[in-house]
């Protein structure tokens, strides 16, 4: 029996349960607001958002693999395409595009034209260093780590800071194949 072909992001997005978009945006906004109140330091908030994203990512990867039936990507280029076309579509309902590949094929940019997390959001002057969507960088990092890729994800362009789009730079640090966990001595 041939394996099931991977489903497109649109098909999966249509079949999963949805939550109201405004509820999602406002809940996320409340989380960031509360973190700012509790932690006060913008850098701390950035780190905490990244950590939260990482914890989400390590669980999200299983849901992603189960729903999309994507088999292992052959190289990092394919991985980035799958994240942008299937991953973002499936979970956030937006399509992203991949660009700016470097010569090795280990570093690329994922560009989001439309980002549901930032609807209605404006950054005040006191929070200019805040990466509001830093949870997304944590999610990507966590998910890729569970498929044996250590990456570094940073924001290059951020619309809340005046740029024209959201751009994430994803850099592959190394592939870590799984080691046999037990020592050879029975």
């Amino acid at each position: 029996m041939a394996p099931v072909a991977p489903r497109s992001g649109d098909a999966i997005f249509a079949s999963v349960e949805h939550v109201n978009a405004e509820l999602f945006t406002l809940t996320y906004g409340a989380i960031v607001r509360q973190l700012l109140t509790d932690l006060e330091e913008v850098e701390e908030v950035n780190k905490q958002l990244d950590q939260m994203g990482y914890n989400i990512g390590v669980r999200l990867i299983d849901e992603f693999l189960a729903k999309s039936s994507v088999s292992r990507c052959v190289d990092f280029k394919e991985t980035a395409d799958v994240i942008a076309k299937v991953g973002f579509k499936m979970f956030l309902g937006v399509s992203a595009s991949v660009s700016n590949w470097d010569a090795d094929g280990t570093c690329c940019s994922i560009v989001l034209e439309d980002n549901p997390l930032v609807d209605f959001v404006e950054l005040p002057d006191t929070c200019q260093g805040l990466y509001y969507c830093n949870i997304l960088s944590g999610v990507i990092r966590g998910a890729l780590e569970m498929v044996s890729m250590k990456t570094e994800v940073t924001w290059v362009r951020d619309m809340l800071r005046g740029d024209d789009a959201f751009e994430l730079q994803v850099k592959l640090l190394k592939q870590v194949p799984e080691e046999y966990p037990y020592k050879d001595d029975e």
Partner: protein
Amino acid sequence: MQFFGGSDISPSPPPPTASGHNAHMMYIFNRSGICLLYREWNRPLHTLNAQQDHKLMFGLLFSLKSLTAKMDPTSADKGNLGVPQLPGQGCSFHSFRTNTYKLSFMETPSGMKIILLTHPRTGDLRESLKYIYNLYVEYVVKNPLYAPGTPIRCDLFNTSLDQYVRSIS
């Protein structure tokens, strides 16, 4: 404002094959070799204690995967035997059958391994294992009380698993 309909676990379960016996047992391992779940429905003979049993099963699968990948006649890339492969890369074995049981195996790119032992006349269980993976995602991964990497203690998961396994061959 966007509102959409809901749906339950997808894909929907494959139609049950012949009715009758339950499966024998089931293991779920994660990528570090920790046995997250061991369910036993029908196992008359126990030879090893639980720890050794899990290590043996994991070791067996690790070696089988490695062997089958290296012996692949269609693959151009021949690494050394013993070099760890990335899960899902290259060819992957999915079942073996003896005269008394059939072992079906599925590995995801995230390193989750699902193993089901059934009677030897069982058909291809790949779709069933995929459905079990979906059950795992719904009841375990999405469960906020579950810490990833620890043994699974979710009653809802156990009951829906038992129910589903009863319905396959």
